[in-house]
């Protein structure tokens, strides 16, 4: 479904991606792990076309993302941004139903759908009329998640969906992501630092380090692999090939 070939990206002289190769088959839940600042968010943004790779090709359903109608392509995607990226000029329900309202769905219908999505991310209906600035960080994250899944996209990206949530809420969100992949057959890419989240939602795991994918495999393989990077990362060791200062 999604294929990255030899993707390079540098910001000025800060080379972030140095030849990323990655394949996510249709209907699979891929989790990307890797240290802070290694370019996980940049990778997702490259696929969405928000960041233009310097070298390399990215295809979605065998079509290069640079070709064809960009809006049509993006209408197949849902994205939860790391920082939420909620529109602070509009209430929560309009954030969630943004795409629907723009495509001409009636206000009542859009609002009802927004409230339904709020329920799925564990928020009460009265949140609908509040503004993003009035919500806690974890609530904002969940509203962002509701917005990402609102239009039932085929492909969903979650950038740290459970960061800043309490363990119970994190469990609810993990279940939700799993459910979206299994029941709706969506293809998902999730970035997370939370190992319980990795185990709950991943079909496959990819480890990004030094601008390349160092390792990919299933969760079971992740626990038994001899790869020193993965071993250090999943066990949270300060000693190993990944320097603590980056």
């Amino acid at each position, binding site marked *: 479904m999604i294929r990255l070939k030899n993707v390079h990206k540098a910001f000025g002289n800060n080379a972030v991606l140095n030849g990323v190769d990655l394949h996510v088959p249709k209907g699979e839940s891929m989790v990307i792990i890797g240290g802070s600042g290694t370019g996980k968010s940049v990778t997702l*943004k490259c696929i*969405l*076309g*928000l960041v233009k790779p310097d070298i390399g090709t990215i295809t979605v359903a065998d079509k290069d993302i640079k070709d064809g109608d960009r*809006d049509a392509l*993006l*209408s197949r*995607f*849902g*994205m939860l*941004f*790391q*920082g939420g*990226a*909620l*529109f*602070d*000029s509009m209430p929560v329900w309009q954030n969630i139903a*943004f*795409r629907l309202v*723009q495509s001409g769905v009636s206000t009542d219908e859009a609002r009802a759908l927004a409230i339904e999505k709020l329920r799925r991310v564990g928020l009460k209906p009265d949140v609908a009329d509040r503004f993003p600035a009035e919500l806690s960080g974890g609530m904002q994250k969940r509203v962002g998640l509701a917005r990402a899944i609102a239009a039932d996209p085929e492909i969903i990206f979650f950038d740290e969906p459970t960061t800043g949530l309490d363990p119970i809420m994190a469990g609810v969100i993990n279940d939700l992501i799993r459910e979206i992949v299994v029941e709706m057959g969506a293809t998902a890419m999730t970035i997370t630092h939370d190992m319980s989240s990795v185990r709950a939602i991943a079909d496959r795991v990819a480890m990004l380090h030094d601008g390349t994918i160092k390792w990919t495999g299933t969760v079971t393989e992740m626990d038994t692999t001899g790869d020193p990077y993965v071993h250090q990362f999943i066990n949270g060791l300060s000693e190993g090939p990944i320097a603590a200062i980056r």
Partner: protein
Amino acid sequence: MIRSATLLLGSTGRAVLNAIGAIGAVALFAAQTIGQIARPPFYWREFVSACITIGYFSLPVVGLTALFTGGALALQIYAGGARFNAEAVVPSIVAIGMVRELGPVLGGLMVAARVASSIAAEIGTMKVTEQIDALVTLSTNPMKYLTVPRVLAATLTVPVLVLIGDIIGIMGGYLVGTSRLGFNAAAYLQNTADFLEFWDIASGLVKGAVFGFIVALMGCYFGMTSGRGAQGVGAATKAAVVAASVLILAANYILTEAFFTA
């Protein structure tokens, strides 16, 4: 000696190149904005709300500016005119000065201070908090959704503001003229009406439209190109106000030259 000369040349050259690059980028941005206006979809709700924030909410500040300027203008022209026994020109000069020059320029500058800054800060914040990226992923073109409504709203509402400012400014002159300078009320108004020509007013409104376009365009451009973080937004806001003000004054000279020298 030669070394420092080359250094100086080099840095001057770089500054010139940067300036040319910036002008090119702004021109491209303007062309893109205009190119997007006619292409659907058009975001009516954004447009109406931009008209209200840019036009309606600027009324008090533009009105007050015009009122005091008209009053001060009457005092100055009276004092200046007295030097060659021409106090009688006060009503017509106040009117012409207001509608041709001070109404649009001061109105434009006040709108630049109020609107260019707020647009740049709003869009800049959206940029640094990834809201612009979010718009794109929701299949919405930020140029169409954010820039076009604001630029169109400013281009259409600033002339209206200028017209209202003209009327209030002339009224300011009238109030000072009749209460402080001993003009007869009816004669003052008659004199104003007799000497004011249609093109005087229309030229000021055209200036207003151009200034409105400049203000919103600068706000959007610097917002969209804002650097990262709070510092980036602060710098974008300052740059938007400075660029809008300077461009208004420069455009005013060019338009005046084009309209009134033939």
